[in-house]
């Protein structure tokens, strides 16, 4: 591409063009390279996928599945956010004893594969909204806790001292120093945790062998050996996930601007 | 300080440049040998409308030490980039040993302020790098690298990695590596600027002692007038906005020079005063 075409289209236009060309190439490779050389048992053609998506949207199965998965993800995320924050505050602000006891628990849960909870929870509660949310929350809370702890531990204690010397109490310290400071880390934590929440929700649905949610659709389509169904659901899942990632980036950038002005991603340490 | 550096360096050079064309003595003016570097009416801009270099005419004799000095932004580093073939002149001709420079100029070695040592290699292996690239066998290249390290006072540090060396030692290592490259022309862009004054003087002295034995051409960039007078056979003073040559002066101080004492010599003081007044007018 020569430089002049950039100028003509403008930066935004150039990006749009780039995505169109790129996705066009992807579709072309899919249609003319992948489909002819692979079995239709596991690779569906774009046209078949499109048709499948059409029928899924018209009979509402797609919307209800997306709704189910998203609600599991969001509720689990909210719970994980709350628990993670409370833990971070407890570990960071209470006596060191509490921190030393709780922190290994947080790190341990963070490094463990969360999906192992699925079979156990299935035995206790069977399939249901609750167990799925529990697994999502179990994945989210350590992420939030670790990032928030990072923020709490790097608070500039000189600023806190100055505030206290001016007569500020804990309300002032929390509101004026702590919250803005850890908001940066929290935003990053949310951008990491929210897409994860969706992935976990889908994964749990798959493991529970359910028929509801995006994972449920995938299970049904696997049982039916329907490649178009699987691919259509995956495309839908990708769109949801991409929207979620984009949304969190936008919200993150806006919140950062609110707290830190125009500092490009920066904050005072 | 290092013991017969001239002969050692000459041996190193001979071993590396067997078969290269004859190079004249310092005082010889062999007219059949082309200048090591020749810029003819060279201009350069980065394409943004600001002229970085304008109408540069410069000729460097083989084996000469030419120092480019000037205020920031006068294009002296850009000039080195042109000679190295990193960029091409916008207009004008650039010849190296009589041959036009096209693409990266392999007869050049470029030593910059921030060294390009490989962090995972020992000092010995870093120094030996040019030999390794040329395919010299391990025993031989280690032998010659050890000699170069000895010349630069790094024998004790041979097994250390760059992050374990001080700034001065790293500069010396970079120098040792330059010695082992077979480049006929060495470009140095403020190589010792990041060092403290004492170390800088020591390294300048080292450079002079090593250079006496070698027959490489040296084009040296600095913003330090004392350094320029101490090191150079010829000083080229450049001005900025746009970058151009303001004047050239021979440095008539005989070799061997003592870098620390040079600045007290009357010839040096005279030269310093002259150059400084021109530089000063540039800085206003």
């Amino acid at each position, binding site marked *: 591409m020569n430089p002049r075409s950039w100028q003509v289209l403008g930066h935004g236009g150039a990006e749009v063009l780039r995505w169109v060309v790129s996705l066009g190439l992807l579709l072309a490779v899919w249609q003319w390279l992948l489909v002819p050389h692979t079995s239709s048992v596991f690779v569906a053609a774009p046209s078949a996928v499109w048709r499948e998506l059409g029928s899924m949207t018209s009979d509402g199965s797609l919307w209800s599945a997306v709704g189910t998965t998203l609600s599991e993800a969001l509720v689990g995320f909210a719970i994980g956010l709350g628990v993670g924050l409370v833990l971070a505050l407890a570990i960071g602000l209470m*006596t060191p004893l509490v921190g030393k006891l709780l922190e290994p628990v947080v790190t341990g849960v963070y490094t*463990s594969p969360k999906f192992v909870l699925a079979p156990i929870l299935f035995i206790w509660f069977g399939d249901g909204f609750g167990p799925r949310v529990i697994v999502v929350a179990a994945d989210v809370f350590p992420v939030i806790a670790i990032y928030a702890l990072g923020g709490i531990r790097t608070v500039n204690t000189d600023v806190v001292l100055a505030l206290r010397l001016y007569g500020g109490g804990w309300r002032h310290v929390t509101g004026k120093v702590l919250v803005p400071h850890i908001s940066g880390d929290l935003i990053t934590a949310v951008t990491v945790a929210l897409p994860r929440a969706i992935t976990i929700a889908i994964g749990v649905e*798959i493991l529970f062998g359910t028929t509801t949610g995006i994972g449920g659709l995938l299970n049904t389509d*696997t049982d039916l050996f329907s*490649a178009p169904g699987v691919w259509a659901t995956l495309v839908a899942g990708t769109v949801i996930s991409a929207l979620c990632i984009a949304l969190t980036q936008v919200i993150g950038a806006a919140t950062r601007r609110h707290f830190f002005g125009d500092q490009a991603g920066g904050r005072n340490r | 300080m290092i013991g017969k550096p001239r002969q050692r360096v000459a041996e190193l050079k001979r071993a590396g440049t067997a078969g290269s064309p004859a190079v004249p003595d310092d005082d010889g003016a062999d007219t059949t040998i082309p200048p090591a570097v020749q810029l003819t009416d060279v201009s350069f801009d980065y394409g943004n409308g600001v002229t970085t270099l304008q109408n540069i005419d410069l000729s460097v004799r083989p084996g000469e030490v030419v120092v480019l000095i000037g205020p920031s932004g006068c294009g002296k580093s850009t000039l080195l980039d042109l000679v190295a073939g990193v960029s091409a002149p916008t207009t004008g001709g650039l010849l190296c040993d009589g041959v036009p420079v096209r693409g990266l100029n392999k007869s050049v070695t470029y030593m910059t302020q921030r060294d390009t040592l490989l962090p995972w290699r020992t000092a010995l292996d870093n120094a030996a790098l040019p030999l390794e690239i040329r395919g010299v066998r391990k025993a031989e290249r280690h032998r010659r690298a050890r000699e170069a390290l000895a010349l630069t006072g790094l024998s004790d540090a041979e097994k250390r990695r760059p992050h374990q060396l001080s700034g001065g030692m790293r500069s010396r290592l970079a120098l040792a590596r330059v010695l082992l490259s077979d480049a006929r022309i060495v470009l140095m862009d403020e190589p010792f600027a990041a060092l403290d004054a004492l170390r800088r003087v020591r390294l300048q002295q080292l450079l002079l002692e090593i250079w006496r034995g070698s027959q490489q051409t040296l084009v040296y960039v600095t913003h330090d007038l004392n350094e320029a007078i101490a090191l150079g056979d010829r000083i080229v003073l450049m001005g900025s906005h746009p970058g151009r040559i303001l004047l050239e002066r021979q440095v008539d101080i005989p070799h061997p020079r003592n870098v620390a004492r040079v600045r007290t010599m009357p010839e040096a003081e005279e030269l310093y005063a002259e150059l400084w007044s021109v530089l000063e007018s540039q800085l206003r």
Partner: protein
Amino acid sequence: MTDTLISSPAAARRRAARWQPDARWQNVVVTRILFAALLLSLWQAYSGGKGAVIPEVALSKPSEIASSLGHLIANGGIFGALGSTLAALALALVISIPFAAALALLTMTRAGEWILGPIVTILYAVPKVGLITVFILMAGFSTKTHVLLVATTVMFVYYYSFQQGLRDLDQRVVRSLRLFGASAPQIGYLYVLRAIVPNVVVATRVAIPMAFGFEVFAELRVPTASGLGVMLNQYTQNLQPGPAMAVLVFIIVVACVIDALLGYWAARYAKSIGVGVTR
């Protein structure tokens, strides 16, 4: 120090005057062990048959879990399972790393980056757990399905890492090597390969735990002959909570050990090349 953030210095002083375990690591470990022992004894005490606070049918007694774990270790079954899981994991890594490297190299050209950028972003957004269904259709009930899933997931970690590493290459070093007369392959093995090792180390630090998690997931969904997830699935299907919890505990321990080892090696490597140590 941070505990004075929201309480007053006077309150902090009062707290400090009370008994605190001191910060020596031995005391910290002992405190943690005591705490864990306390929790375990409470669990053991309240666990029991029907009507107990913690019904055994759901969550076994710690003593039972311990003895199940003991059996599994003694008869070596669990190590065989571990071996299978790790083998699949290793195979997935071996497959995905070259792919990631090739892809990253492609994006080093202007055209490559322009075209591939959006494609990779889209592919990254695909919910990888969902891909297992495609791989089931493709490879059926076999370890191949596991390996495919893990490889796809891990590939992105390495891709981004390689890309970063290639972008961070010091062009002045490349230039000086070329001036010394190095050919492109020489620049590759003298500089590029070594320069991206830190990126590979960082990527591996993230990738292996991730791979372990996804491998266990794959084994739970597609239980093949052997594997930790397979074992867990087996015992839960047969309603044997004791052994199931034992396998669960083992999996968690393995995950933590892997993570700790990787962290240790990464830190040691960073130190050896003189970079500030980060975990």
